[in-house]
């Protein structure tokens, strides 16, 4: 049994995951079961950061990956997004970099800057 704290939401359920069957107990909702299994099989995280932006009053544009990416690819993704220079206007949800770090996730803007 592996003991985990669920990070799907701020509630932080204390999960127990069976290493062989991936059966999850201690979860208050179905998302906890999915998290518990994935955390043992292939842990993933949503990456959030900022990129340089030109042409608006702001210095930085906040961004995120639109899907979670494997934990091991976080720093590769940071290297890619740090090379970006975005020009305003940009809208929340705009794709700035598709398939970041070779994943099926896109880097999107999380703020509208006009």
């Amino acid at each position: 049994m592996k003991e985990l704290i669920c990070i799907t939401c701020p509630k932080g359920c204390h999960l127990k995951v069976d290493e062989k069957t991936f059966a999850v107990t201690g979860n208050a909702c179905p998302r906890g079961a999915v998290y518990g299994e994935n955390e043992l099989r292939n842990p993933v995280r949503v990456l959030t950061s900022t990129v340089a932006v030109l042409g608006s009053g702001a210095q930085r544009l906040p961004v995120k990956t639109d899907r979670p990416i494997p934990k091991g690819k976080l720093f590769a993704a940071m290297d890619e997004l740090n090379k970006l220079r975005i020009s305003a206007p940009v809208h929340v949800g705009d794709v700035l970099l598709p398939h970041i770090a070779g994943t099926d996730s896109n880097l999107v803007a999380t703020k509208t800057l006009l």
Partner: protein
Amino acid sequence: MTTHELVIIGGGPAGLAAALSAWEQGVRDILILERDKEAGGILNQCIHNGFGLHRFQEELTGPEYAGRYLDLVGKTGVQIRTDTMVLDLDERRVLHTISPQYGYEAIQAGAVVLAMGCRERTRGAISIPGARCSGIFTAGAAQRFLNIEGYMVGKRVVILGSGDIGLIMARRMTLEGAKVLACVELMPYSGGLNRNIVQCLNDFDIPLYLSHTVTDIRGKDRLAQVVVSQVDETRAPIAGTEMVFDCDTLLLSVGLLPENELSRQAGVVIDRRTNGPVVWENRETSIPGVFACGNVLHVHDLVDYVSAESEAAGRAAAAFLQGKSPEGPELKLEPGFDVGYTVPQHVHKGAGDVEIFFRVRSVRRNTAIRVRDGQTQIARFRREHMAPGEMETIKLPRVLLDRVQGDTLTIEIEEAEA
């Protein structure tokens, strides 16, 4: 002097939600005063995700959450005045403001919502000994530098305090290339959410030293070393346990203080436990027509709860303006064993169902929250896990409140059975 029906001080999540709900209740002359360049408050620099699961049933980043509310408010006639500082507020609900655009202005408000939020405790508040060098920041200040202004504040970092902002900054600094050497927590447990310990510290192998604190700061111009010592049960440093970290940056995440200078100037009664106004169930303060919500009232864990509370305050402000105010005898709420505070601090009997928010003082498992009317227990709520870092809530239905005999209800934690 200009007049407005409803003036809201602060354009963060609390102020925006209060404005929106007051508008929905029919108030048409609403002015939000915001001292920053843009509305949205602290959400603008909280670029991480995890916001909105309750309010929007999806996981949003801070700017996205603020954006949702700004879009909703933008569809109404609510005015937002940025770059505007409120200098003074008095008990007649007169505000004195200053801004580059309008200069000095006095405003008579029909009703006021206090939504100023909170600010961070600093090095001075916790009296860390040692050199007065540069490189010591509150975690939120460093977050603003990094996420809004685009400056890295350091390369080798120690974080004092395991509150959520400190944990979030541990991850953020690491992702941006800094080496976070340690997160140091005075208490035997973390003040942050469990999920943040997992995804901000454990994910990056950042050690968390519980029952430790910073006992010396060394450096001439810039910070060079931080000394960390273990503490005993009385939180006094233990000699001989010193660890020295070579670092250029110390981030402080040592608590938040509701920002109530204006409330105090106006004469609003402040609760010494929360450092926020004493409020009724509708979030009205001791001054009629002045309401408070969000982190100015008590520090929340989740913005979703701030929005919910502020919507209630906005509705109550609208009701006040429409001449409808709750009535009924006062029922005091008293924090009992291991309960740090309650919000609201008192309710009108007959006000309907009442939700009570509070924090416990220590980590507890398999226990229960008890509500007492004198010596009689009138309600009991089982809890598997409680911690000071997690705000608790219980709902007392009207039928229960109607049956209360005394004038005080005590909210307490059941002592664990041996």
